[in-house]
């Protein structure tokens, strides 16, 4: 028996529905159909009053969740694809994100965003949007890379009083498996060292953690020991763990699947340079997707995002600086 990443998300929601009466799920096709990715399969059967299909109205879905949250509920909103959260952007950043600061009343909503690329999904079903939400105050942005984190961080997100944008990577849904969901976990807001090393640090999150580990394994054959830091949440950003790693290695590659302008990798490089310039033995590098919309054809798509090959290439550049 093994547990996939989407099994973990399903299990977290089931456990939350069973343990907390204030949790409910709201989203398109999530009821009897079980969701576009089956993250809510069978849940409406057990909780008909708390697993509800919504109209195709992302703005109203999040607005409704905010209203319910300030009335004592803990809604989990499923966006069918992260890309469509653009329609809910205003309610998330301007309504939910400002609410605690303005009124002192927290908004404990969790918005699940199936994000990231998979072959053939093209420009409107593949995007990484975490940097958009991370930019705004008042929002927690969670980006799990592992099966256990998908489970524990989703539960922690719902327990949190603040609005959470939960970025779950579609490529990991069924591809990523674990023997079981671990009992132990790190708290939300703490990064993890996924792979220890001493020659360079790759700071990344979500599906790119696995690509970075693959790249590191290839370089290991040549004697390079690459450390991989999995951020787990991009806001809060655990700079203590990042700086400690850079202190060990002296070299930094910030890696992300999002578009290259601004974003998480730029933030990482900027903070490491500002806060840990003295730790660096070489100029830090960034690697992101290309600055075009995400292409449809699998061959183009595979060359649009960072791959183990392009990560290895970038790491060689970093190690030779």
């Amino acid at each position, binding site marked *: 028996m093994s547990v996939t990443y989407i099994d973990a998300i399903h299990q977290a929601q089931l456990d939350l529905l069973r343990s907390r009466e204030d949790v409910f799920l709201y989203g398109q096709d999530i009821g009897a159909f079980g969701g576009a990715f089956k993250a809510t399969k069978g849940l409406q059967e057990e909780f008909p009053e708390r697993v509800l299909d919504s109209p195709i109205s992302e*703005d109203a879905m999040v607005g409704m969740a905010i209203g319910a949250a*300030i009335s004592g509920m803990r809604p989990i909103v499923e966006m069918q694809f992260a890309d469509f959260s653009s329609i809910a952007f205003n309610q998330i950043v*301007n309504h939910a994100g400002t609410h*605690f600061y303005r009124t002192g009343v*927290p908004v404990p909503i969790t918005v699940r965003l199936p994000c990231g690329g998979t072959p053939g999904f093209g420009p409107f079903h593949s995007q990484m949007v975490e940097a958009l939400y991370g930019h705004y105050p008042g929002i927690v942005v969670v980006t799990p890379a592992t099966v256990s984190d998908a489970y524990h961080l989703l539960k922690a997100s719902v327990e949190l009083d*603040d609005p959470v944008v939960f970025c779950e990577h579609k490529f990991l849904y069924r591809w990523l498996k674990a023997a079981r969901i671990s009992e132990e976990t790190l708290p939300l807001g703490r990064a993890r060292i996924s792979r220890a090393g001493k020659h360079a640090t790759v700071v990344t999150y979500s599906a790119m953690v696995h690509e970075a580990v693959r790249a590191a394994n290839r370089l290991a054959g040549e004697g390079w020991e690459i450390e991989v830091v999995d951020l787990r949440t991009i806001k809060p950003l655990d700079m203590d763990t990042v700086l400690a790693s850079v202190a060990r290695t002296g070299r930094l590659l910030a890696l992300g699947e999002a578009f290259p302008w601004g974003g998480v990798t730029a933030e990482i490089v900027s903070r490491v340079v500002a806060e840990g310039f003295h730790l660096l033995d070489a100029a830090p590098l960034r690697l992101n997707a290309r600055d075009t919309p995400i292409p449809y054809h699998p061959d183009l798509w595979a060359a649009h995002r960072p791959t183990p090959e392009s990560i290895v290439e970038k790491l060689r550049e970093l190690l030779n600086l």
Partner: protein
Amino acid sequence: MPYPPSMSSVSNSAQSLTSSPASGSGIGAELMRRTLRAMITSRTLENKLSSLYKAGKIVGGVYLGKGQEAFSASLGCCLDQDRDIFAPLIRDQAGRTAFGEELIDATRTYLGSALGPMKGRDGNIHRGRPAERRPAMISHLGTSVSIVAGMLMARRMKNDLDGVVGATCVGDGATSTGSFHEGLNLAAVEKLPMVILIADNQFAYSTPRSRQFACESLVDRALGYGVGAVEIDGTDLGACLQGIQTAVELARSGRGPQVVVGKLLRLCGHGEHDDGNYVSSELRKSAMGRDCLDVGIQQVIGFGYATETEISSWQAEAAERVQEAVAQAQREPKPDPFKEDWRACSEGGRESQ
């Protein structure tokens, strides 16, 4: 006593309201008196806020509801302060007062007192007390419709919805937003006990109705969603109370969301920075341009619900209370940037910096 007849037009929806030919008849004295008092208090406060703004005492914008008091206060008075939900918009001082908001909340927020509900972190008409069923609006129009829907959905899931009505207000301009349409549709799908007031005040800032929508009446928009709707004369206190009371009762009795469109004219600029010179004198002089406060006073006296002397005493009392609320807020400390905690998240979501 004579007053212009109601101009109510009624939709054909099965859930629609009935017309109110003799506006005001059937409205109890207590309700009408209470609503008029809220209108007087609101107008008095807003006149003062306008003066303070022009004297440079208020930073940012001042947005008034002159000409909309009858429509707005009628909603505030028809709701139950102890259990209903009221999400006002920028021209709802009268509704806020009618729903029980203290004057000091308004003056503290406008004048930037640290003791106000927003502590200087947000200003003017954005204030609210969400924990007391009064959400704090954001500037993005139409967004409150789904917020109120969610507050009602929460109560339904907690088996606590019985007898509760949620209400919100928008203007004609807000009905052009996606947020409004998504929210209204969601409320209709969920058959929520909601009342949505649309103040059709002829202009969205400076843009006339003709550049805002092509349907004849905004009632049409509600009908398209299966929502009961009626259009009433928003300058006529009796018609407002009758129409809105019926809508609130229909919503409370399980008939789903109800829209009430009030035909009226904003008797001020968009904000006090705007002189409203785009409003033609013809429109100002039309029936729609009459002052609902004058109409309301005439109606209340005409029905024998209050005397002129009594109304004068209400006005004097309002002036005194407004003066006190302004003076108190002006004496209070401003927010201190050095004591501000600068936290947008509660403890759990904070980033260590």
